[in-house]
């Protein structure tokens, strides 16, 4: 308010112009500042948003992409008449649910352990090591996975399984193992990030709670369950709702790179992202892929919107708007 008064006082005698133009004249420099990023947003974000209409078209290259005939919901009818629609939805949501639970439980456990470690120097060292996978691209992680899982030479098949007397497993052709492999990889790669978030919260808690509990004779376990976890709840709730809002979106790198996009694994590894990529760029089916993409965008939009509304109720600071 004060700013407004001050700047208004600096610019007298502009009463007759329309308010909008007066604002533009007064703040023109702000519009100049907003311009470059706005152009990027329009080109990168808004043009593709309008492009979703191609999901309602029968795209053929003779008429061009934008001139192709409208076919209403045919692409969606065709998509949902296949088993694939159910399969990719199931895979996407199921993996995300597992990831959310693992990330939450393991990260909180690790964060509490870090906080309790006597030697803070070593705690920092281990935390750095744990954070390392977060910085590797999924191409690198796929190499690491290959070093362990490859059929003939991989470390597991060449060293571990023979030691246990188990026959070699053709990991990249056996879809049954991947619902276990992928959560391990996802946890390995991302847990460092979540630990940082939770540890930052735990470090900020008032020490007096714990001192009072100690005087009352509470054990470490009781302190953890009765003080740390309840104090963490707001952070947990926000982090979880944020992730639930993204439950319809999968990590393309994990499902595309780490599985090496093996068709034999699709039954348990194909998610919406990889399906759209595969149908569009490998098979050239614009209709099906754009329909699946729009299906994801719309359900994802609703979920993000709802989760954001919930967060705004609980913790306005963390809401996007």
């Amino acid at each position: 308010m004060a700013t407004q008064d001050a700047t208004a006082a600096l610019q007298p005698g502009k009463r007759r112009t329309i308010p909008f133009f007066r604002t533009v004249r007064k703040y023109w420099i702000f519009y100049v500042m907003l311009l470059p990023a706005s152009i990027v947003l329009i080109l990168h974000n808004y043009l593709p948003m309008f492009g979703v209409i191609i999901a309602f078209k029968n795209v053929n290259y003779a008429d061009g992409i934008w001139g192709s005939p409208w076919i209403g919901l045919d692409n969606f009818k065709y998509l949902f008449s296949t088993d694939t629609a159910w399969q990719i939805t199931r895979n996407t949501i199921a993996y995300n649910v597992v990831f959310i639970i693992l990330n939450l439980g393991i990260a909180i456990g690790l964060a509490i352990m870090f906080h309790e470690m006597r030697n803070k120097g070593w705690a920092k060292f281990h935390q750095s090591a744990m954070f390392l996978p977060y910085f590797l691209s999924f191409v690198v992680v796929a190499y690491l996975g290959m070093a362990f899982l490859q059929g003939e030479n991989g470390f597991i098949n060449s060293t571990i399984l023979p030691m246990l007397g188990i026959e070699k497993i053709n990991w990249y052709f056996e879809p049954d193992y991947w619902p276990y492999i992928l959560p391990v990889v996802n946890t390995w790669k991302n847990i460092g990030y979540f630990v940082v978030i939770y540890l930052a919260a735990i470090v900020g808690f008032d020490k007096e709670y714990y001192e009072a509990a100690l005087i009352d004779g509470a054990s470490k376990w009781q302190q953890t369950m009765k003080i740390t976890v309840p104090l963490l709840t707001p952070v947990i709730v926000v982090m979880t709702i944020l992730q639930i809002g993204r439950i319809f979106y999968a990590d393309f790198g994990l499902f595309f790179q780490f599985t090496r996009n093996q068709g034999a694994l699709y039954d348990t590894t194909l998610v919406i992202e990889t399906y759209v990529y595969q149908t569009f760029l490998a098979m050239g089916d614009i209709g099906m892929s754009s329909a699946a993409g729009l299906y994801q965008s719309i359900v994802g939009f609703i979920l993000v919107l709802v989760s954001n509304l919930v967060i705004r109720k609980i913790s306005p600071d963390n809401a996007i708007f």
Partner: protein
Amino acid sequence: MSSSATNPTLGVDPLKKAKRERNPNEIGKKANFLINVFFWLYTAACVLPLFLVIAVSFSNERDVVVDGYKFIPQTFSLDAYRFLFEDWTPIVNAYGVSIFVTVVGTILSVILMSLYAYPISRDDFPHKNFFSFFCFFTLLFNGGLVPFYLVYTQTLDLKNSLWALIMPYLVGAFWVLIIRTFFKTTIPVALLEAAKIDGASEFRIFGSIVLPLSMPVLATVALFQTLVYWNDWFMSLLYITKDTNVSVQFLMYKTMLNIQFLSTNTQAAAGIAAGGGILSFPTETVRMAMAVVGVGPIIFAYPFFQRFFIQGLTVGAVKG
């Protein structure tokens, strides 16, 4: 209730305790020991896979083919690297592409995002709500891969252009949100008003007051953007087919997909063919050597930069 393992006040020599100034609420020795062991194992799990790749890259191809990947090379060999650097142009070129995209992308994105965040952080700017929404809506809805691809290739004609690798990450709404919040909460309005009364233009205020005061958040954004640009392979997968525009990550991906990629079109293939043909082509070890060459800079830079990332994440998490 509390066992000696969990309650440190029991069974500790009081003299010793006084000397070392222990916090009375510390965990017991046993528990501390178990936690330490656990974290050593976890650290090993995080780091050892990298060692396996490095070990294989320094192994003799024949050993690897016969006995599989081992953590300790049976015969130490530089064959893989010798082969890889026989023709080093693809690697040097890929590093050039990655460095260019990362540097230009990071600098541009920090400039663009802070320029955008400043007006919408100002409460007196009447259109701040519109522009905030214009940016943050992109967090809620996106057009998906197909229209995105078609816009980039058909409308903007960016196929095989390095701009197709830079533009997608230039403006991240989440980072704009964090920068805006930082401007709002850390820079006193009184300071801006004083500067204005002294006759400073908005650009000057932004350049000589707002930006210098916001170095912590801008450094964080720059650090994370560097990581995003350096690690990106997806945009290359979509838009790059020309060999000269292949980045490090994409080169690694292509090598994994098809080891021949390294040898086709290069003198290396000729050299290998002359030196003994297919038999001496060290596919397994060369592949891993490529991974080592690609991941090297990250591993070397990591110990120096990781604490900034941790600090940055905390800034974002608390203020987000």
